[in-house]
């Protein structure tokens, strides 16, 4: 397990093998938030991916 930063700068503990996928998702979340999307919209966008 490693500790990395989430989209909102908080510490998050995740399995090391998931790091790249995790960081990609968090980058997308940040981008969608900048675009003014709501949390529910972001979850749908990520699920549909």
């Amino acid at each position, binding site marked *: *397990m*490693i*500790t*990395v*930063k*989430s*989209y*909102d700068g*908080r*510490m*998050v*503990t*995740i*399995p*090391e093998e*998931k*790091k790249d*996928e*995790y*960081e990609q*998702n*968090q980058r997308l*979340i940040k981008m969608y938030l900048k675009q003014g999307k709501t*949390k529910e919209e*972001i*979850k749908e966008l*990520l699920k549909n991916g």
Partner: protein
Amino acid sequence: MDESIKQRIIEFNNQFGIKTVFVTQKDVMGYALGNTIYINESVEQDYEKTNRHELLHFFEETPEFEATKKRLLEEHADKLDDIRSEYELRYFGLYSEEEIKAGVLDTEIAIDMMVDNSSFEYEDGLKIGDDFLGQIQHSIEEKRYLNLSLTANIRGMNLSDWEKIFVLNYYDGKERRLPQGKGADRVQAIREDIEKYLQELYELDETSMQIDSHSPEVIREYESEIKALKARGEDTFYLESDPERGYEEIARRISEQLYAEYKHIVDLMKGLDIEPSLKSMMLRETLTKVYKLDRDNETNKGKTIVKNRKLNESIAGHMILNESTLQFIYEHIGNLDEFKNFANLYFAAVEIYKNTVAEKSQITLEGVDTYGKGTWIKFDGKGTDEENYLENAKKLSALVQDTPWCTKQLASSQLANGDFYVFVDAEQKPHIAVRMEGKSIGEVRGIYNRTRIRRRI
């Protein structure tokens, strides 16, 4: 990264027996592997906060953590759904909404509250985190103490209290296995092991107590000696010009001193009519642990500290083991509710001994008027009384246990170099120490500050 921050983190983790390594690695704040926390110093972050986060993860499976987590979640029960919902985006792709609602991240939530990593403001979170880590540190320290918690099967054995304590602490199930069999045969086998072990401890020679010249404690002692010489305006060229020689001389001197101290304890024990099991446990204890009263720490005054002794590294003196302290320990082993652990029992024994030292050892120094404020006590060093200086070292160490002076740990080394004087007040409390180096004054210390003497008592 600031070196002082690094040092703070290292020392903080040391309290828990955890190592710290600083790494440079892309995009990772930190991680833990084995018994080590790794902090990425190339990432801009609050390093101490990240360390605390890693440290809390280390102990997330302890009963203490479960109790703390339960308390935190119950206190925030009305907001828990909202808190959990906050974690959905943060952990997207790792856990589903259903899993998060069911509490799969509750450990993370509790840890985040204790390190101020939560988006919910919780004033007491850091304090609860401190209390939790304090509990963990305490339970780690408890394990260093001589184990006195008899299990049911040991309690039922037909042995004396100290023989039972021997059984609890000596047999490790690996190289030392509890004798099998029943009844008198087993008891006999245990008593033979006690005698055999005691004999081994009696026969330890100086080769098993050689301090490594590069031990961190030797190096620290070398630096202290240079500092003390400079404070007295003395020449330090001999020591500073060749540090390796300095380390070796200090290591050799302390090795000899510690062995002489140990042999003194052994010779004393051979002459005492006390159970062999108690003798063996006390010799084992002084060889494997360093006992200290922490008077230096403002918040922990009177706290007992028990550290592991490494025979090739630790320079602190041995425990004060003589007829008085051993008798007290022997007689009070049944009062553990009062003392809670062996360290407290030991220091209570030293306190009793200390009182007798002060009463019996007062002297009058010619031409010195103490204005009725107290008396001087002189401890003859090796040069004055070679036969008794080790015994004097025990008395001196006991007398100054409640002071911040290093004499409480290094009494025999100091008496090897000269006499020692302590000024005590009417309540036998030490106030001034004068250490002699041969016929010269080596050092004078007061009680309230490491370097200055208090002007008025």
